[in-house]
């Protein structure tokens, strides 16, 4: 078995875990992060993309709200390129409680969240589709955050500061030394099928909704309250400002414009299992109905996708509904709590507060490690900030400037061939879904209809060219990761050349499996919202992959990847399979 020695082992490659690795590395600590799938595959990559102003929790959870506004100001500097300054409206509709708006404004003032009441006429000028029956509107500094890019940038900053980040490495067991100490973890390298033992005087459990399962392997009880939230994406930016209902936080009360879409969120249902991501039909109905309150007629828009994430909420000895559980962050010091040293668990919080969660966690870890190093993440920018915020219009401009029209592999999101090739070279690719998170492949209206085949063909080409050119100077994946600027990965103009370095291609799957997995992965998120024009689009995708390609009858039809089983879980609870005695 392979052994790794380090000072800090971080479990979980979401925003929080990556933030912890970054903070630790900046403090000069040796740190290794393990993530069982791809970075952001968990809750971080499954949220609506709101950068909180704090307005949403200002009445209900003022402490959380004040953390949000402080972090909002910091992240706009440290992760500037990942944040779009959309601003946010809090809209009181005639159906909402009439007293809440005044409470809301007072609470914002008290905490220091900039909040300005604006006239309905002015608000409608900015957002013409907003409910014209709105009674009052307040403007706050909400924003939209690209959680994929932010986490990748944080991870890159961490790597540059010396952190090791291992995705597709799953913790199977926390290692204990007697009853009173955790000394690291046994980890499964999913791609190679090897076990690794990672030893560290401090292990940080940042597995979010999975944190209870991790703690359990050391015999510790952590009752995470997994609160599943479903979201829907409209196929274009039906609003350009974040729209919130001005009332106590509830189901379906927010619309976030992010990149090319607008996201309707969210529901909140306490679930037993953090991997329970299947959407219930009532969730779709509720989101459409409530969405119509903010933007009348939004239920008749074209939706391209639905997904769910599971919030890692935590409240000691809590038995209620997840909607009412606190959004506050909690650091569990298992030495103080359970008499087990060498382990901290960080829970709760919001994406917006990930940096603060890392700071608090590392402060405690440093106490135990006897390292008196201050946190500098609030004043340190991550790589990519220099590029500024990147949106589809930039890609279009660069494609036109450089005449890259025929290079477009994904026309919906303007991904070029070289962008895909470089991303595949720089980032261990187990599925096309990993590349989707890197370059937004397959995220537009056709949901992989055209680009899945092209990506499989291009990756197969890379494999062939690698087999034919035997290279003597193969650099390691990690050293390349240091040169790689994730912000540049978003830009066609920074990827005019195909990859030149002869990196070992970290693709373990057959092209047929890549293709099948990605089509199924896209299908999962389409199932809940297939009607109208998106159903027509999907029928075209069927024509391509069944009729034209006969893809179900490709060789290796029964091969599976580490992700196949996950993708095969139904996207919505109601399917025709139920008739035949359950899914599958």
């Amino acid at each position, binding site marked *: 078995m392979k052994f790794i020695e380090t000072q800090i082992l971080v479990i979980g490659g979401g925003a929080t875990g990556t933030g912890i690795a970054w903070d630790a590395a900046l403090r000069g600590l040796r740190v290794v992060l393990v993530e069982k799938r791809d970075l952001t595959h968990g809750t971080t990559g499954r949220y609506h993309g709101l950068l909180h102003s704090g307005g949403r929790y200002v009445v209900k959870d003022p402490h959380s709200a004040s953390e949000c506004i402080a972090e909002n100001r910091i992240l706009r500097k440290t992760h500037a390129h990942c944040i779009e300054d959309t601003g946010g409206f809090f809209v009181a509709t005639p159906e909402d409680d009439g007293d809440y708006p005044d409470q809301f404004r007072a609470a914002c003032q008290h905490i220091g969240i900039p909040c300005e009441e604006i006239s309905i006429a002015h608000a409608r000028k900015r957002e013409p589709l907003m409910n014209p029956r709105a009674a009052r509107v307040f403007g706050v500094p909400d924003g939209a955050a690209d959680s994929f890019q932010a986490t990748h940038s944080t991870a890159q900053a961490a790597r540059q500061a010396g952190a090791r980040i291992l995705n597709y490495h799953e913790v199977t067991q926390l290692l204990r030394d007697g009853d009173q100490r955790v000394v690291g973890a046994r980890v499964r390298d999913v791609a190679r099928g090897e076990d690794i033992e990672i030893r560290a005087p401090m292990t940080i459990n940042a597995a979010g909704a999975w944190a209870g399962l991790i703690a359990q392997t050391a015999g510790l009880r952590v009752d995470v309250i997994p609160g599943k939230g479903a979201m829907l994406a409209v196929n274009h930016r039906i609003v350009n400002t974040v729209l919130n209902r001005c009332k106590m936080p509830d189901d379906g009360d927010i619309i976030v414009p992010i990149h090319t879409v607008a996201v309707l969120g969210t529901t909140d249902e306490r679930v037993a299992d953090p991997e329970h991501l299947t959407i219930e*039909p009532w969730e*779709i109905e509720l989101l*459409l109905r409530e969405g119509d309150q903010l933007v009348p007629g939004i239920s*008749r828009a074209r939706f391209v996708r639905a997904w769910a994430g599971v919030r890692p909420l935590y409240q000691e000895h809590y038995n209620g509904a997840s909607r009412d559980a606190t959004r506050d962050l909690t650091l569990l010091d298992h030495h103080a709590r359970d008499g087990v040293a060498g382990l901290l668990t960080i829970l709760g919080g919001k994406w917006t507060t990930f940096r603060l969660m890392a700071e608090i966690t590392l402060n405690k870890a440093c106490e135990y490690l006897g390292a008196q190093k201050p946190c500098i993440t609030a004043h340190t920018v991550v790589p990519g900030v220099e590029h500024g915020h990147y949106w589809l219009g930039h890609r279009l401009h660069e494609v036109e400037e450089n*005449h*890259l*029209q*025929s*290079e*477009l592999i994904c026309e919906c999101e303007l991904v070029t*061939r070289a962008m895909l090739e470089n991303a595949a070279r720089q980032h261990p690719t187990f599925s096309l879904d990993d590349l989707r998170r890197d370059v937004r492949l397959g995220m537009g209206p056709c949901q992989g209809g*055209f680009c899945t*085949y*092209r990506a*499989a*063909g*291009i990756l*197969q*080409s890379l494999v*062939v060219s690698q087999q034919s050119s035997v290279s003597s100077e193969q650099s390691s994946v990690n050293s390349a990761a240091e040169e790689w600027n994730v912000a540049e990965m978003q830009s066609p103009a920074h990827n005019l050349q195909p990859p030149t370095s002869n990196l070992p291609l970290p693709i373990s799957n057959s*092209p*047929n499996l890549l*293709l*099948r997995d990605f*089509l*199924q992965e*896209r*299908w999962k998120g389409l*199932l809940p919202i*297939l*009607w*109208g024009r998106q*159903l*027509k689009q999907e*029928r*075209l995708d*069927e*024509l*391509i*992959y*069944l*009729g*034209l*390609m*006969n*893809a*179900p*009858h*490709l*060789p290796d039809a029964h091969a599976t990847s580490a992700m196949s089983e996950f993708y*095969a*879980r139904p*996207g919505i609870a*109601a*399917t*025709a*399979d*139920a*008739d035949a005695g359950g*899914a599958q």
Partner: protein
Amino acid sequence: MTELVVIGAGLAGLIAATRAAQAGHQVKIIAKGLGATHWHAGSVDLLGYFPNETVAIQRPLDAMRDIARVQPQHPYALLGDAQIGDALKNFLALARAIGLPYSGANQDGDNLWLPSPVGAARPTFLAPRAQRAGELSRTEPMLIVGLRGMRDFYPELIAENLGKQGHRARAAFLPLDLITDRRDITTVQLAYALDDPARREKFASELKKLAQSGERIGLPAILGMDAHADTFDELQAQTGAEIFEIPTLPPSVPGIRLTNALRNHLRELGARVDVNMDVIAFHAEGARVLWIESEASGRPLKHRAEKFLLATGGIIGGGINTDHTGKIWETIFGLPLVAPRERGQWFRARFFDPAGHPIFRAGIPVNREFQPIDANGARVFANVWAAGGTLAHCDPILERALEGIAITTGSAAACFAGRK
């Protein structure tokens, strides 16, 4: 006055209009857009798989008799052997007449196996001439040639998968600028570029250098548009090799060739084809539809006719629409549909489930004369017929029957309409 208005310019509509025009009727097609032929492989898929079966059908004409037993309302069951045979014979003659000959397997009645753009074997019944040499029952080795930088065709992937299935195949590339200097390249533009004799001569001489003796050459389906026959013949002559086209990602050049040829032929027969006409209303008195109305600039346009033939495609063609409440409707006449009752029954959890997704079997129920009927089996209108992908009780894509359903039902519906 127009005798027959066909709504829809996909394969079903074109075939129906052609048959009616051949029989001497005054015909007009009005259509919102073009059909699925523009997206598909350009071959005639008749029947490749039964729902829930993963083993392909070898003899589709025999298999149709089984369908008639198990699914008596399936369009093929409604048609029966004689009408299917007649429609296919008619199509073969028509295809020859318009300069795009199609043919089937050597043993009459068998499916052909042709390489798909991903290198799978796809079952089809009739192939255009340019696809025939790709037949996978043959043993000669294949050289799959792509154009470096072309995004809709991947020879290495095709060769790899053909190899895994026991076929001898290798991949090679030619530079894209042999054919075009353009930056925004689609299959259609490449096909038009090869209509130019100078370019295809250059292309042929480079191609010849790649091929080894005894190899047949597979190329993306871009071998000429208007001058396809010349392009194909010259490439074979100059390379001295057998050449075959492999369909590409849409748009489909072989599909467009077929559509263009059929439309030209209709024009010669004196029938109009008007595209970009969205039907927005109709008027019926008693059991007869008197006119339909299409959207136009200025004011809507009325189309009066004695008879109307619906060939609007199913969900993919826009003939059937759905919404988030689970409602499903026929878009022209609001005809009764056969469909799963609620949204929860529309789909299966797996995209590639061999049982198919129930919503895609939704459609218009018809009687044996292809006239739409209601839940009690009663005819809805005395002068309306339906054909193609809009019909209920079959899933033409899952069953690999897309063109077969279009041709056979289009042909039959036109014949029934002509008799009344």
